[in-house]
Structure formats: C-alpha cells, structure tokens
C-alpha cells in the first residue's frame, strides 16, 4: 500500500489557493458558508423558538413585517424569520446527507461497473437503468407515504434515488480511462486492480464526482422542498418547503402575506445557487489540466509594444 506523507495537506492548500483566484467560487463559498453559519447558530440568531407554544390573537396571524417580527408572522402567528432560520438546518442537512449517500452509491457503482465491466458491470448498469426509468417524484411520494415522513426516511429516499446520473457518468469515464496506456503502464510496474482503481482512475473521476455531487446537493434540497411542499415533509421539523406548503395551503396568497412565501423561496434559491458556483470552481481547482496558467492569460497572450507603432501610410 502506498502511503503519502503530508502531501495531501500541500494539495489541499493549492486547491484552496486556486479557489481564491476564482471569484464566482469565492462568492459561492461565502454564500454557502453564510447558510451553514445561520443553520448552526440558529438558536442565537432566531429571535423566537419555533417550538414553544404561544398565545395568538387575530392580529398576530399574517402580521406585516415589524420591529418585533422582521419578516412578519405566519398563519399560526409565529415569527417567519425564526422559522426561516431553523428551516435552513433541515434543508442543508437533508441536502448534504442525501447527496453524500448518492455520491457513495453512484461513485462506487460507476467505478466498479466501468473498471471491472463484464457480467458484474452489466448487472449494475441494468440496475441503474431501472432506477433511472422510474419517475423519481411519484416513487418518492409512494415510499415516503409508506415508510412515514421522518427526516431520515426523506434523506434515504432522496439519496437512493439520486445516484443514477453520477453512476452513469462515472462509469463512462472509467470505461475510457481503463483503456488508456498509463493503466497498462501501471500494471506493468506491478500495480494491482485496486491500486489502479484508487490511484489512477479515481483521481481522474473525482472532479466529475464532485461537480455531480454539488449538482445533486441542489437537486436534493429542491426535492426535499418539493416533498415538504406536497405535505410529505417531517411533521416535527419545519423546512423551507414545509413553510411554503403552509403558506400556500393556508391562504397566504389571498391575504397578501408575501413575506411568508418569499423568505423560504429565496432561501432555497440561495443555497442551490451557492452550491452550483462552488461546484464549478472546485472542478477547476481539482483538475490540474484546467489550472495551466497559459490558459488564463488571453489578454496578455499577445505581447504588445509599450508605444503605439508609427503608422506607415
């Protein structure tokens, strides 16, 4: 087994350094960092605890934004801003955990199917096809309805339905990579299948897996919101999708309470956008061939003389 001492730290440092040069990536990172910070610090940021029971009067229902309630109140007279802050926790936890599951399943299925091929590869790809042809949302609704809408059930359902795209992309890449000459050369110097897979194929598919995962994070968050919006969310925690559901079904639109819809909606967009920006930047940082500085110097490519040339008419 080949061990690497301290080089990963170096590698990470260079990736972080490169990310620094990518403005959109930094914006994405900052947006995602803010969302994660809000989610972690929710109890200190939110002015009210959404779980405490409160006494409400008719004026408290869909109250306009005010000093006491910066984003107004919802149909139950509760503070929308507090619910929004706590809702970030649910959306992010579901998004990240479900994508992690998708990435692990999709990445390993794709790598094994592509690299080993043969009967095992065929079996895995037929399985992928089956998962791919089933429409996700109806199946999700059915499964959640059957197993019950708890947070973990939702995470698992989203995770085990979202890996097919990753698997297919990773497989096609692995298929072409294993025919490359450096794989033969690695075999010649004494590398076994596992080493080739880990050291030669995996680093080349990693950027693919990462960009895909980031896409899947946004998809997972959207799917969670969809399920919650359809009333299949975890009833004990209020996610952004759940907030939209309550606002939509309980007359927020007819009462003109835009604040109850805009906050969770923008929250979803915010996180999805940040993931996409960060993912693109990470892909560039991970792929050494995209790093070449000569690819980034279009303006400096043609060295112009400092003085304008005399015109010879």
């Amino acid at each position: 087994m080949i061990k690497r001492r301290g080089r990963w730290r170096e590698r990470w440092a260079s990736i972080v350094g490169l990310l620094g040069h990518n403005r959109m990536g930094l914006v994405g990172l900052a947006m995602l960092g803010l969302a994660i910070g809000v989610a972690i610090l929710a109890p200190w940021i939110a002015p009210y605890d959404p779980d405490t029971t409160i006494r409400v009067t008719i004026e408290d229902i869909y109250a306009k934004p005010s000093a006491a309630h910066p984003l107004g109140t919802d149909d139950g007279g509760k503070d929308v801003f507090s619910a929004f802050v706590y809702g970030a926790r649910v959306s992010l936890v579901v998004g990240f955990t479900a994508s992690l599951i998708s990435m692990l399943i999709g990445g390993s299925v794709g790598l094994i199917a592509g690299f080993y091929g043969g009967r095992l590869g065929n079996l895995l790809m037929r399985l992928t096809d089956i998962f791919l042809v089933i429409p996700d949302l109806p199946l999700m609704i059915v499964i959640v309805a059957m197993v019950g809408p708890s947070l973990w059930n939702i995470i698992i359902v989203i995770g085990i339905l979202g890996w097919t795209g990753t698997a297919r992309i990773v497989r096609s890449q692995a298929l072409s990579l294993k025919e490359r000459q450096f794989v033969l050369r690695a075999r010649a110097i004494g590398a076994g299948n596992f080493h080739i897979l880990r050291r030669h194929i995996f680093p080349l598919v990693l950027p693919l897996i990462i960009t895909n995962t980031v896409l899947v994070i946004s998809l997972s968050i959207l799917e969670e919101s969809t399920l919650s919006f359809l009333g299949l969310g975890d009833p004990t925690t209020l996610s952004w999708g759940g907030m939209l559901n309550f606002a939509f079904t309980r007359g927020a639109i007819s009462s003109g309470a835009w604040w109850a819809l805009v906050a969770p909606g923008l929250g979803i967009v915010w996180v999805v956008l940040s993931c996409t920006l960060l993912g693109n930047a990470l892909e560039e940082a991970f792929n050494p061939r995209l790093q070449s500085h000569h690819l980034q110097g279009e303006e400096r490519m043609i060295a112009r003389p400092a003085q304008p040339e005399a015109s010879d008419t």
Partner: protein
Amino acid sequence: MTERPTNPPLLDVRNLSTHFVTSEGVFRAVEGLSFRLERGESLGLVGESGCGKSTAMLSLLRLLPAAGRIVSGQALLDGTDLFGIDESDMRAIRWHRISMIFQGAMNAFNPVRTVGDQIAEALVFHGLARDLGEAEPRVAELLEMVGISGSRRSQFPHQYSGGMRQRAMIAMALACNPQVVIADEPTTALDVMIQAQILELLERLQRELGLAVILVTHDLSVVAEICHRVLVMYGGVLAESCEVDGIFNQPMHPYTRRLLGAFPDLSRPEGKLVSIPGYPPRLNALPPGCRFAPRCTEVHERCRQEQPKPREVLPGHWVACHLHDAGAANGRT
C-alpha cells in the same frame, strides 16, 4: 560482438506464438518466434505496422489485452520461464528485471498525478522504498540521469515537453535497475532532433548500466545507429535475423531487401526509393505458404505451398526463405 558467447543468453525466447481470439476469428499475431538476447546487447526488432512486434513484446511481459493468448513457447529470462510462473511471481519480475518504455510517452503518464509520484510507485511496488516520500531522492536521481532537473519531479506530465516525457518514461523504465529494457518505438511522434537525443540517451544508458535493450521500431536507420543485432519480422513470423552489418551488407530475405530499398541511402543519392506494393497479410486470413509470397518478386511455386522455416544460412545469420534452403544454395534441382 563477433565471438559467440557460450554461456546461456540472458533472454531466450523459443517458439513464441500469440493469438488474438475474437468474434471475427483467430488472429495469429505472432507465430513461432525465437530469438536470444545476450547481456548488454541491443537487439533491433524491425517490421511494418501490424506485424506483431508490439504483441511479441507485450507477450514477454504478459500484458496482452483481454483477447490475447500466448498459445505456445517459452521465454527464459536467466533460466526462468516467464510463461511458466504464476501471476504474483510475474508481477515481481515485471519492471524489476524486465521493463518497458511504452510507445508514445504522452499517454503513458497519468495526467493528474505528478511525474515523480508515478516513477516512485514502481520503487514502492518493488520494495525499493517504503512510501512515495522515501522514494523521492531516487526519483530525482533517475530524472537527473536522463537530463531532467530533479526538482521537476513534482510537476505534472502536461508541464513536460514531448521529448521530456519520453525521457521521464525512460527514467521510469530504469527505476528498478532492470536487466532487460524493451523500448517500443521510443522515438515515434518526436521530431528528428529529439529523436537523436533520445537514441543517444538510450545508447549511453545502455553502455553505462550494461542493459540489454530490445528496440522495437520500423525505422531501419535507428537500428543501424544503436543496435548490435537485428530481427526482421513479417506477418507475425521471423523473416531474417543477424548482426546489424549483415542486414545492411548482405540482406538475404527478399522482404529485408525491399525494406532496405524503401529507405534513403546517403551514399547513393541518385538511387530511387522503392515501396513494397501490397499490404501485410491479414492475420486472420494468412496465405498457406510463405507469408510474404503475395508481395515477393522472387516467388516460386514452393513459396505458395510451404511455409519456410528459419535456417542458419551463415553463422549467426538466420533466414526464413526457400531461396536460401540448403538445396537452393547449391543451385536449385
């Protein structure tokens, strides 16, 4: 190089046959190939594209693609039959005692790993270093040996030029101090200046390290420059094999003669280059007799029926052609 060594050769390949078994039939890529390689010797393996040169070499390393089958033969490396040992023993021998410079070094490096790491891997696999970090001094030394600054070990292959990549590939092949290095067209796709540099480097390293080199090429001028002996292959079989002077001064096989005729000769600038009409035989539909018969100008009836066997016509000069059979040499009867 004229006296014949009496001790057993370093590498003795006997009757090697490699076939590709595909849905379109069996391709007999190499058949009955025998040759010897002495210590410190450099052997040129010449032939047109698709005549089985690379296949024969990959057979020696047991690195054939999935459809490839070594159907017969022995390859004795210092007395050990490379085809008779199991895969784990083969893995220990590969690169440690017999290594390979791959065709087109552009593709022989993983693009997302540093050149140094990839060279170091060979050292780690063969127990010459405990991990990649420990291998670093040796990697730097290897790179310096081929004229690349050791500090460039942490660069990626795309930061190397074509010639540098080829030199790095040579450094990689030498990592474990092998006895035999197979160079599979090491100068293809390089310009003539770089070609000359690479060949000079190979020759120097061979002399200094006492390597035995098999140089696979379709360029006879390369062979003339650095090889001691030449083996000409045609359609998967041996056509002619002898010391390098013999090939140029006294070519016997009609194919060798035509091959030489297709190369420019500086001493006869007025001489016309002649190509060989036709194509090498398709390896799944071989002619029954001599494989060169359909393109040979000196073909006679026997060539179309009977495949000629390699015979030692002069000391150390083997030819597989009916024209040079014992009977034919005394005038045909």
